[in-house]
């Protein structure tokens, strides 16, 4: 319990430091946050003053920071300059899509990816290992937007099997629940495959290395000597021992999947947090940028915390360290 509390406290402190740094870094970016509002027609001096007052841009940066932190504690991140709507509302609108896509990719990586990694370790140096290594590294080396475009061209434009973009069909509104769920899944397939293809290599490589290490351990040799079945040795002993080091990947992947899928989101018009963050950065929309920064920071800290906890559950020695 003490270890858990200390680790949770560390996570909170890390988040606070990260948000403080981000707040001041964002405000040091060149560009005027109100400029986007004058794109169509220039603003009068009075309008500029009103807007500065509304978004507290007329306050010293220190006062803006205090106000931001006060609001953040209440769950209020202010109003987006670009959209004129509450930041919380904008983030909550996008979050479900981001989580759905992220969860699908994590699921693929941590099921198929780990299974393939184990297969590679079991077939070390043999053709299957070499083919899987080549394929996974090819996926890893491919730009995600290019791969996405190719998949769209093949499965949506040419074959008409899957939709090219969006997360739902506007025409299926009145349909039953099962149709809607299937429709969501159909829209999910291509973006999830694209992200998984470029990310699965790392889980496979990690798993392969960890498995090779585990298979050399004396307890695995002993298990074989005891006459256990091959599956039991691999999955019941070696894989369990290899798992903790692979779980650290979860902490690394979570934040990337939350806000790092900008290109894939653009290619598939998958309106998640990544594209919202990119748009906010381009528009210097300080409140929105900070709102998404909070989510990203939370993802990093949570990912790291969860992987530490899982690691410690699987390997109690980690708690001592």
């Amino acid at each position, binding site marked *: 319990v003490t270890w858990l509390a200390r680790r949770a406290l560390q996570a909170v402190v890390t988040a606070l430091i990260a948000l403080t740094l981000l707040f001041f870094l964002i405000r040091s970016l*060149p560009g005027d946050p109100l400029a986007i509002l004058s*794109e169509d027609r220039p603003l009068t001096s009075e309008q500029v003053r009103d807007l500065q007052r509304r978004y507290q841009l007329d306050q010293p940066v220190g006062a803006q920071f205090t106000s931001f932190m006060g609001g953040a504690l209440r769950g209020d991140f202010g109003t987006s300059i670009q959209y004129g709507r509450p930041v919380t509302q904008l983030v909550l609108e996008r979050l479900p899509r981001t989580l759905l896509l992220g969860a699908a990719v994590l699921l693929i990586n941590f099921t198929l990816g780990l299974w393939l990694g184990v297969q590679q370790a079991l077939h070390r140096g043999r053709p299957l290992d070499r083919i899987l290594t080549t394929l996974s590294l090819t996926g890893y080396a491919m730009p995600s937007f290019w791969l996405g475009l190719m998949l769209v061209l093949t499965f949506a434009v040419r074959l008409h099997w899957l939709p090219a*973009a969006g997360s739902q069909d*506007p025409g299926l509104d009145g349909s039953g629940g099962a149709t809607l769920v299937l429709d969501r899944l159909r829209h999910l397939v291509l973006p999830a495959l694209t992200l998984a293809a470029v990310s699965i290599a790392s889980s496979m490589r990690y798993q392969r290395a960890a498995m090779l290490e585990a298979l050399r351990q004396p307890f695995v040799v002993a298990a074989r000597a005891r006459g256990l079945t091959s599956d039991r040795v691999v999955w019941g002993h070696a894989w369990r021992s290899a798992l903790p080091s692979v779980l650290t990947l979860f902490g690394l992947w979570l934040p990337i999947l939350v806000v790092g899928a900008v290109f894939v989101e653009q290619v598939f018009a998958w309106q998640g947090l990544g594209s919202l963050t990119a748009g906010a950065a381009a528009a210097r929309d300080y409140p929105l940028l900070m709102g998404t920064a909070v989510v990203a920071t939370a993802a990093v800290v949570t990912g790291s915390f969860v992987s530490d906890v899982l690691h410690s559950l699987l390997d109690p020695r980690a708690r001592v360290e």
Partner: protein
Amino acid sequence: MLRHCGRLLFLLTAFVPAPGAAQSPAAPSRLVIAIGQPVTNAVPTLNRGAAAMQVSDLLFLRLGRYGGTSFGDHAAVPELAKGWTRRDSLTIAFDLDPRARWHDGKSVTARDVVYSFARARNPKQSPSTAMLLVDIASVEAEGDGRVVIRFARAYGEQLYDATYHVQILPEHLVASIAPDSLVSSAFSRDPVGTGPYRWDKLEPTEYLRLRSVPDFFLGTPAIEQLVWRFTTSQETRLSMLLSGEADVQEDVIPPLANLARLAERPSLRVAHFPSMSVSYVLFNERAPGDSSRPHPIFADAEVRRALALGLDRVTLAKALFGKYATPVSGPAAPAAWFGALAPPPVAFDPKQASRILASRGWKDTDGDGVLDRNGLPLAFNLLVSSSSVARMQYALLAQEQWKRLGVHVEVVPLDITQFLARRRPGDFDASMESFGSDPSPWSLLDRWGCGAEANYGRYCNHAADSLLREAHLAKRDPAPPIRAWLRTLASDFPAVFLYSADRVFALPKDYGNVNFHVESPWLMVWTWTLAGATH
């Protein structure tokens, strides 16, 4: 495992209708339009961005819609007003169409019009519209069916001002909402208008759907649903079109190669119509960062002229837009009613350009390929917003052509906020601009008038301003002063006016009576007919 994945994929593809599949006869006719900007609010004065304004135009009618000119008493076509009567040089009375109804079934009354004008003229609530309505002295109701608008002075664009700038809002629903709360009100989320389509559903960031109003008082729309799907990537919009998930793609070009790709779906055709937008290279006539001093290069009108002569605008426009762009000589788009009054653009003449530069003392004294004068190289930065592919490409092509004259141009691509932040205080030498004007020539004063808010290049010619004022106040024919104003601008070269590009849309072949309104493309979609359309 792979077998299971295959089964799942089969299920996904087999039991949900494929995108673009023909609908059953009972399914509503639907037009799906792929656009780049999301629509978040369609309430007049709260909406931002072209797409939101176009949706707003379908929901909220005006007293009359733009009639092809901004002058005289034929500047509008009846919409909510079935007609108007001029009482004197300062007064117009509008008779409301008794058939006009709000989407909640209530009649449109003069109170709605009076309320909407009061809101539009209030600088606190609608700052940009209020500026345009300064010549309106009063708006009063005469009973339920008549509105009388009085103007502060006699001028030719009274009817235009009374109809073009103000969309009518339902007083019975909006008046009780505090102005600051309107943006987050239930009315904003589910607006009630008077147009041929009513608000149906907004799935934020994903799509907006409007439903037709079967008893719309001007006629029944044939297309029952209009759906705008939001996709920032142009490539994705094209994929949606080719896969059948969208029926229409706005602004298919540039790149021109997209036109060839449309052949993959033979049921599509290309439609184009002129826009009110003109693109130009704007010269800063004052020193960057110090507007009290003249610009060391661009203060000289002859240098600006030489740069215009040294640019092959016909070829460059063709390279980017094919046949879908027209070279221009000034800020008036050919689609504007006064566009035809502009003189022809100067022809490409690099030899003459070189002669002019030499006569102004610009010579390559150090043999580095760049002209110079008194130690100052003929070099400048050209700001471009990286959000526009066309302007980025044009800037690079222009850079190459000017290089042949001995002019060094540094193209500076900036994201939109940096671009706007540098342009506003005049922190630039030249910038690639594109501006879509209102149909009134008067609206151009804001860009080209001495000391005007949006006159970023600090061009100033008082005689030119007087000509535009004379046109604005003209009671009969405003053409002579407008023509003279356009000639003055064409000879002063405050910018190199490049082209006016058409809007090029891809849409299904099987719609009839297709017409795009120059001011708001979808304004007349309710008059389209279905000639065997599957959607």
